[in-house]
């Protein structure tokens, strides 16, 4: 609903419309909820339908179950794998962690955008100018966001029930509803997390950063808990662990919904409480609004870019380093279970070989996906400068468009290299602490090996920013989303070589399980750099475009 319609609505009736903010928020989140519900449903359907085609005999299914059912490496990365000899167990193992992470990211980004983002943009003042209070307004926004999450659940459930009617799949209606609930509960949890961080932080970016850090810690705890039986109790310390304990389709444990519901309700109540106790436009955490000038780097467009990009780059690198340390720490124990016939299955996931190297190969694939999204973030940050009008100040000075654009790209490339090197060094550090066998040069090679797909993504984003600036973010996220989908589908089911080749991550050798393919890396990097140059050329000759 457009903002003017919100304002106009009470005038038609002559009295305030009840729950107007909740309705407004619900309408804004409905479309993205429906879209992501479709994505969830398609992923579930493709996974469930592919099982019988790929694993046709009982022997193959038993081998799959024997490989992953007790494999701590796979459990650490994707969650436990019970009943892999059934389509239900396979579907849960293949899609659950992916959907839980996507749902959590959707939740935290949606709530921080609609709460803190609207406040940053001044739209919140319009809402608070009506007959409401800050606390009630936050409560209504949360109710509206809950509608969006409900739509994701409903669409996922409908598509799961539809595929469940197939004789090859056979999921009951109740099981489908419960499965969809388990897959989308992370969205609800992290809507609440984002609502709280929106009260704590003074800006949307910081609020999203705090919520993302919480997600990272939750994932790390779950990963450690699933890496070996000794630390499994840690699963109850992670909101993602509770979702894992729901065990849809294989051994439902609805009681695990209690901590999920309690956590969500407590955070929602906390967000409402904090909203009533702070000033509009401010966060609860102290934020110094005055300081002596720090003019370091503020000497030109490239310095400005470095200054603006540095906090985000350090954040991404820190997150990557933390994940790398965790991977390195558990690699030896987790990789010890990869032997014999299991190698073939790990090979399908992209990491042939055995032991810690094979585990690390898959883990580096996940890090490659992470830093590819870092590239997408850099594209969006550059586009925001143009859309919000800040670029006008730079280009109204004697600064060429090429200089500004090249500076943004150089900062992006440097940040990606930094994250890649951090991934290598910290994986080696984690493994070395456990007496693991990977050498520092091999770890560094593996770290640098994950950079080219991100450079390609940066190039695709730069080209889109040059040609279709208002669609730049969408283009790069579609490229990455497709690549992730094909890569994970390829690991378990998809056999079509042409289709697999469309994934950026399928092109990447799974170092350190296998040596990096520097020729392919060179091609990916070359394509990325070419796209960047084309994007810069187009950017030089087009109109600047606002939001």
């Amino acid at each position, binding site marked *: 609903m457009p903002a003017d319609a919100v304002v106009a609505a009470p005038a038609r009736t002559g009295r305030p419309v009840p729950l107007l903010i909740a309705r407004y928020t619900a309408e804004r989140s409905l479309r993205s909820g429906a879209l992501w519900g479709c994505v969830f449903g398609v992923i579930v359907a493709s996974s469930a339908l592919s099982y019988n085609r790929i694993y046709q005999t009982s022997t193959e299914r038993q081998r799959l179950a024997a490989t992953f059912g007790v494999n701590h490496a796979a459990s650490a990365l994707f969650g436990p794998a019970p009943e892999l000899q059934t389509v239900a167990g396979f579907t849960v193992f293949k899609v659950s962690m992916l959907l839980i992470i996507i749902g959590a990211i959707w939740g935290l980004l949606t709530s921080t955008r609609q709460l803190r983002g609207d406040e940053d943009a001044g739209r919140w003042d319009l809402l608070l100018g009506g007959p409401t209070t800050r606390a009630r307004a936050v409560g209504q926004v949360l109710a509206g966001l809950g509608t969006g999450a409900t739509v994701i659940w409903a669409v996922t459930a409908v598509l799961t029930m539809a595929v469940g009617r197939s004789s090859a799949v056979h999921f009951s209606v109740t099981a489908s509803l419960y499965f969809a609930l388990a897959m989308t509960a992370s969205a609800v949890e992290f809507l609440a997390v984002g609502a709280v961080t929106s009260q704590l932080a003074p800006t949307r970016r910081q609020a999203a950063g705090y919520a993302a850090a919480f997600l990272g810690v939750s994932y790390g705890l779950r990963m450690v808990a699933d890496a070996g039986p000794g630390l499994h109790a840690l699963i109850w310390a992670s909101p993602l662990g509770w979702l894992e304990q729901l065990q849809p389709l294989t051994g439902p444990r609805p009681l695990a919904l209690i901590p999920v519901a309690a956590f969500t309700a407590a955070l929602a109540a906390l967000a409402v409480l904090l909203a009533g106790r702070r000033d509009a436009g401010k966060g609860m955490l102290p934020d110094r609004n005055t300081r002596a000038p720090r003019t370091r780097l503020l000497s030109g467009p490239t310095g400005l870019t470095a200054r603006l990009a540095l906090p985000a780059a350090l954040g991404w690198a820190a997150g990557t380093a933390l994940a790398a340390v965790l991977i390195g720490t558990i690699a030896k124990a987790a990789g010890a279970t990869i032997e014999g016939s299991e190698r073939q299955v790990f090979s399908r996931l992209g990491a042939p070989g055995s032991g810690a190297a094979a585990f690390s190969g898959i883990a580096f694939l996940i890090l490659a996906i992470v830093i590819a999204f870092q590239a997408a973030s850099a594209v969006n940050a550059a586009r925001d400068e143009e859309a919000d009008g800040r670029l006008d100040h730079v280009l109204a000075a*004697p600064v060429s468009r090429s200089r500004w654009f090249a500076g943004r790209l150089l900062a992006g490339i440097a940040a990606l290299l930094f994250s890649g090197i951090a991934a290598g060094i910290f994986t080696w550090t984690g493994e070395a602490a456990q007496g693991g066998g990977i050498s520092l040069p091999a770890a560094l090679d593996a770290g640098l090996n994950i950079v080219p797909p991100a450079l390609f993504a940066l190039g695709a984003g730069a080209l889109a920013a040059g040609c279709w600036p208002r669609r730049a973010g969408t283009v790069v996220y579609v490229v990455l989303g497709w690549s992730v989908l094909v890569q994970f589908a390829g690991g378990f089911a998809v056999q079509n070589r042409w289709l697999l080749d469309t994934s950026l991550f399928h092109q990447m050798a799974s170092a350190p399980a296998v040596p990096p393919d520097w020729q392919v890396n060179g091609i990916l990097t070359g394509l990325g750099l070419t796209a960047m140059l084309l994007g810069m050329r187009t950017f030089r000759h087009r*109109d600047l475009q606002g939001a």
Partner: protein
Amino acid sequence: MAQAELAIRTRGLSKHYGRVTALADLDLDLAPGEVMGYLGPNGAGKTTTIRLLLGFIRPTAGRAEIFGTDCQRNPDITHRRVAFVPAEASLWPSLTGAETLHLLGRLHGQADSSYRDELIARFDLDPSKKVRAYSRGNRQKVLLIGALMTRAELLVLDEPTSGLDPLMEVAFRHCVTEARERGQAVFLSSHVLSEVEALCDRVVILRDGRVAESGTLSEMRHLSAVTIEATFAGEVPDLSTVPGVSGVVTEGHSLRCQVAGPVQPLLTALANAGVTRLLVREPSLEELFLAYYGQSVPSEGVAGVAG
């Protein structure tokens, strides 16, 4: 005056978005030391003109030069002699005012630091605050100081006083007057007609992307209707058939109207109706502006143009 000396020169400058004409055949000359007011309602093409001059968007036809250099081909050369204040005060929220001014000075390549400090005092700005803690008016002050401190030969100002309080508007007028005295050219797009009337040597009025009128205020007044206010002992006469009369507003025994061309028929009609008091004056810029848009001035004061 030689063309190369003009601060701004456009010929046939046009911008179309599909079938929509944002700007059509604009011919504009601005000399150094001159202040030009650029008026028009929202969507008339003012900001489009400025973005074309700065090379932010490409013209569909025509050309624009700043100090004789093509704005599109060599924007980084022309921008050395230009300072710009945009209508939207969108700045980097994590930087303080002082850091932003430092950055703007370094980007431009020249900034008079003593004049910057003087401007900070004049505009009563606390430069130690982060931009996100500034009000809209204070963000606008940062942009104004950032432009003025460069002492650029051409100031391009797009609604520069939006959000400023009246005291700061006075400070702004002093700064523009000083800039003109130093020989700087000022291109001032504004909705504050009193500001334009007070500062500008020449005025250009846009309508639907085309120049509706241009010239000095006195030239425009000569071409336009004069305003007449009359009070009567009895009933106010019906002037609808009097040649040249328009915009009649009556209130009790008084009326106000504009008359273009010969005033004899109107004076005869007023005399016959028993006029007891008569005031004749030239139109204000506000009345001129509204006249070009086919509207009369309301009986109560109008602070500016809507929107």
